[in-house]
């Protein structure tokens, strides 16, 4: 595939991510913060998001497996996940977190477990999509091109 095609593919891919609600305006803001002095900023922030999220998802799993669930703790983790997903623009993850917190407030275990499954699912979707996007970007850069914004 030639450079122009790759660039077009990237633009289309990004557009679809926004249209399907995987990413929102916050992600755009993130990209705008990147410049020649900080060329890897977006990748760094997103990597941090991946690390954070994976840790939180593990904590949530453990917390919900307890005999007596500590809903305050669960809520605290979800709050963090909501915060970080919102900061990078991972809209679908953020939305599930909102529902998740409501179940925590109601101390509804079934609801929480269901939300955990959902949030894991949304997280892995957005992770895959972002990784694909970064790969495309890398291909373009390797071919000597620049990333269309």
């Amino acid at each position: 595939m030639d450079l122009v095609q790759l660039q077009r593919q990237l633009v289309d891919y990004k557009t679809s991510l926004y249209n399907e609600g995987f990413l929102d305006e916050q992600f755009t803001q993130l990209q705008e913060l990147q410049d020649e002095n900080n060329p890897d900023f977006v990748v760094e922030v997103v990597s941090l998001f991946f690390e954070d999220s994976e840790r939180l998802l593990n904590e949530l799993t453990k917390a919900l497996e307890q005999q007596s669930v500590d809903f305050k703790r669960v809520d605290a983790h979800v709050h963090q996940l909501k915060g970080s997903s919102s900061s990078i623009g991972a809209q679908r993850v953020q939305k599930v977190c909102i529902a998740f917190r409501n179940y925590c407030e109601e101390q509804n275990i079934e609801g929480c477990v269901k939300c955990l499954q959902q949030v894991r699912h949304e997280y892995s979707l957005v992770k895959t999509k972002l990784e694909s996007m970064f790969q495309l970007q890398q291909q373009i850069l390797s071919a000597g091109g620049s990333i269309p914004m």
Partner: protein
Amino acid sequence: MVLGNGASSSSLNMKSGEDKVNSNKNLSVLVVDDDPLIRMLHDMHLKKFGLNPQVVEDGKKAVDLFRIGASFDLILMDKEMPVMNGVEATKELRDMGINSMIVGVTSRGLEIEMQDFMESGLDFCFEKPLTPDMITFLLNELNKKNDDDNND
């Protein structure tokens, strides 16, 4: 914050982009947030304006900095943090007589919660995430405040 008699803030807005970045270098900023992602984001946002913030991860660390004599023009304070949260830290700082600009940056959107946070002694409270417009607003307010202080 009250504008003194005859104080005119319009002259401040004539600065060029570069001037703005340079003049901002004299402003000191402290970011207080337990989320490393937010710290990274806010740090970058502020650097774009020529600021070089210090970052700490909880309210106690912020208070300790002031206790050892550090001072900052602007503090961006998260609400929910372990060890000492934003409400407690703000109260503590105000009790210590600190009159730096303290701005709450919180993910909690409920009116009543932002109000509680404001009542602990904040100058302003915003919902996360920080945006360039908010920073511009705060820097303008800071300039006005510094002008007031100088005109006393």
